[in-house]
């Protein structure tokens, strides 16, 4: 996903209400200043999970920006997606991280974050991610072990050595050829852009 912005596009976040949860109060203030630049007037700041739970439950939000690397941070994210009594379950949730190890990124994704943004935060990157979550059409999944946006960005086929669970599942391992090679025309036909419904 290229980091380019269409500078002629417009954004109006005046009516958006945003909750920012960050243990680091300077980092939270940076987010607030950036959001103010984008036109957001209603920003709620929390530096601990208890405060964040209250604010999340008491307000109708459009966006949650949090650094889950605080005590109870990932649990808060899971709670926000699943157990909170507010109607904010399905809002856009962007996780920010100073030290984004693969383990931390996976944990944030599996707790229900839409996207993860590396700190230090840059205004253009944050605006782009907010645009992505505003425009995305990912479905929402509620399963026993997960609640959040559909995590399946790409189809890599069923695990090697299994037949898959669907009739149209194809393995990544190519079987032994049973037919003659395709003609160039047949190959070209396969690469013709076609409309796909996802």
């Amino acid at each position, binding site marked *: 996903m290229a980091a380019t912005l269409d500078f002629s596009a417009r954004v109006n976040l005046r009516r958006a209400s945003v909750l920012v949860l960050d243990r680091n*109060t300077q980092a939270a203030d940076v987010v607030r200043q950036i959001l103010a630049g984008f036109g957001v007037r209603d920003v709620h700041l929390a530096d601990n999970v208890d405060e964040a739970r209250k604010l999340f439950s008491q307000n109708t939000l459009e966006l949650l920006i949090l650094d889950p690397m605080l005590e109870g941070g990932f649990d808060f994210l899971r709670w926000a997606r699943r157990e909170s009594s507010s109607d904010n379950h399905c809002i856009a949730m962007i996780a920010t991280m100073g030290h984004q190890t693969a383990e931390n990124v996976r944990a944030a994704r599996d707790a229900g974050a839409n996207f993860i943004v590396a700190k230090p935060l840059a205004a253009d990157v944050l605006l782009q991610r907010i645009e992505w979550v505003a425009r995305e059409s990912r479905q929402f999944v509620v399963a026993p072990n997960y609640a959040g946006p559909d995590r399946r960005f790409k189809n890599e086929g069923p695990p090697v050595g299994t037949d898959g669970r669907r009739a149209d599942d194809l393995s990544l391992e190519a079987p032994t050829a049973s037919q003659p090679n395709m003609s160039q025309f047949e190959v070209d036909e396969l690469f013709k852009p076609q409309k796909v419904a996802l």
Partner: protein
Amino acid sequence: MSKVRVFTPENRLARAFKDPNGLLYKQALDRASANVAAKRDTYLAALDIKLEALVDRVRQHSAGAASDMLYFLAQDVIADAGVCGLRELSLAAHSLCDLLVSEGRGVSFAAALRVHADALMALRQPDPSGRNNHRAAILAGLARISQKCDP
């Protein structure tokens, strides 16, 4: 069999990007940058306090001691230094975080931590020579140390 619910929720943010009366992206970004720049001195003062606390803790750190607070402070320095334009300081703090994660796996790197603390203090000072090669050399050295310590 477990029950899975899949649905398309209302995207409340979507409205904001369809409004023809909104700010141009360029205006929005300029305003955001100006807001952050206006508070740079405040952020720098807070950064210096955290940096001092971080370095003190590193110097007192003993093998096997909990390093949670060190890790939190190092992450703060990554974020705060980067926002203030102190890129090398931010990268050095990142290297320290890598080291602390390695240490969390049960190995102690007290000497390597102290080298990072010294490097952080050095990188916080402006380079009077104006050449960046010294700073780049420090970062390269830190990266080598972190790699070496990654079990």
